């Protein structure tokens, strides 16, 4: 059971990570802000409460791993990894600049702490299965966490993987679906309706839950339950707000990849810092 103090600690951390992410986008002028800001809470609870990692040994075999299959949310993860000390925070201002180690989409060859290259949607799902099978072969106790998108779930490869992870009884694979209800061209229900995703995951043989993806207590309960599973892979469908915490992005279906100039970022950061946590 997660205590109030812990929740407050996580809320402050999430706020700071949002600020760092907004600052990086503002410095560049453009970015995938919607889907980056909707996964801040899940990244926070994973990296600051659940995952066993060591920034000094980013390739340690026994570590827990994260596959950010919706690779365009990379900038949110970079804020986490910089804060954790995988690389200097100054790198955040190099986002997407020529020669950077922080490209739009996650790249395991370039960025310390990135466990899998992602960006071509659907592919992280299968890679996460491979990592989990690899842990099993290596006798590694590590968990594999995976975050997929709702638009990403239009991809057939997601459902190939869904069938496969259940077949191999990958209880050490814990997935999250960032159900922010929007994809690039509009609302999911209009473009390709995924409807009630947890029912689909349950039908595929997963332990499926649905939570408010910005509620730390709910996320923590769901993760703890998922860890108790002794057979099935887990999928935690998170209702989230795309662009959460950026006044200009929330409820704006154009927020998938949008202009974020320094003034917009500064105003959003000012408002975040005024919030009482």
């Amino acid at each position: 059971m997660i205590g109030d103090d812990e929740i407050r600690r996580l809320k402050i951390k999430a706020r700071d990570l949002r600020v760092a992410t907004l600052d990086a986008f503002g410095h560049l002028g453009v970015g995938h802000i919607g889907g980056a800001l909707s996964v801040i809470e899940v990244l926070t609870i994973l990296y600051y409460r659940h995952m066993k990692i060591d920034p000094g040994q980013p390739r340690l075999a026994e570590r827990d791993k994260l596959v950010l299959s919706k690779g365009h949310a990379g900038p949110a993860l970079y804020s986490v990894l910089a804060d954790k000390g995988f690389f200097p925070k100054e790198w955040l201002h190099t986002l997407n600049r020529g020669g950077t180690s922080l490209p739009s989409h996650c790249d395991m060859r370039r960025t310390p702490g990135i466990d899998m290259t992602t960006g071509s949607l659907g592919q992280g799902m299968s890679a996460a299965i491979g990592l989990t099978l690899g842990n099993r072969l290596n006798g590694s106790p590590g968990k594999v966490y995976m975050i997929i998108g709702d638009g990403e779930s239009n991809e057939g490869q997601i459902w190939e993987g869904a069938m496969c992870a259940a077949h191999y009884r990958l209880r050490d694979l814990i997935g999250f679906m960032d159900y922010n209800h929007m994809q690039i061209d509009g609302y999911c229900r209009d473009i390709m309706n995924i409807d009630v995703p947890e029912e689909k995951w349950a039908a595929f043989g997963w332990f499926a839950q649905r939570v408010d993806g910005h509620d730390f207590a709910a996320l923590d309960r769901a993760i703890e339950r998922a860890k108790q599973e002794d057979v099935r892979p887990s999928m935690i469908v998170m209702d989230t707000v795309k662009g959460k915490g950026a006044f200009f992005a929330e409820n704006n279906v154009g927020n998938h990849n949008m202009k974020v100039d320094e003034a917009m970022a500064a105003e959003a950061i000012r408002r975040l810092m005024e919030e009482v946590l």
Partner: protein
Amino acid sequence: MGATTEMEPKEMRVVYAETLVRLAEVNPDVVILEADLMKASATGIFQKRFPDRAFNVGVAEANMLGIAAGLSASGKIPFAASFTCFSSRRAYDQFFISCNYSGLNVKLVGTDPGIAAEYNGGTHMCFEDLGLMRNVPGLVVFEPCDPPSVAALVERAAAHKGCTYLRLHRKPIRPIYRDGESFELGKGKVIRDGGDVTLIAVGAIMVPEAIAAADLLKADGVSAAVIDMHTIKPIDRELVVAFARKTRGFVTCENHQVVNGLGSAVAEVLCEACPRPLRRVGIRDEFGEVGTLDYLKGRYRLTAATIAEEARVVLEG
């Protein structure tokens, strides 16, 4: 082992599977993946010996290559196989991004290349895979022509750090090389030396046709060299240049589109380094179709007679 026994045809897929078992006995990281074609690849013996290290993921090639990437990121050396059409065309982006762009170590195998698809016909007949794979940065692309070269080159691929693509004829093939012959990825083999024209061939169908073509030419008093260019990428530039200096021209022989396969690779070397006349025997901008191997050889002109004819064109030019 007498010479007669050595020259008996052997199923290439069995050599592939036996080689993997042998490698896996000494290297616990060797694993295999199949997409419901384990029977076709003959890797059941691997599964029987190492049940925990064989993954048959069902009819899902994209997923198979993503899983292979994850296994590679866990330190494994995955060999993933399917028919050539599915390994290349169907799962290209997964192989490109999850395996190659990610800097991992996945060994992809495409079986039944080109007209070897025979009765599976045009839907399964892949004349494009070498071209697709040549365009993947850093990828090693190879197609052995007989059982000993399958065994040797699969071992080389396993030892290579980085992704490879193996184009594998599955069926019984009569050995050209002796067991234990040594091979290096990226180094072609001179099967027969010659001074007039160079026949560069790849694969289990076209290398024997090129040797037969050399015999036809010899009867006409033409001295033809035959090179087994088992590795398409990186192409053996030195060998091509050496034969450009000693012969008057080239014929390339491939069970693949002439665009972007062996013929293109050789043409690129010649044009850049040492221009010589070149004719390309292969598929001329066509789709596949159903038939026996002999029918298809005739249909697409993948024969010794065609190669010899093209060689004469080169020499008369």
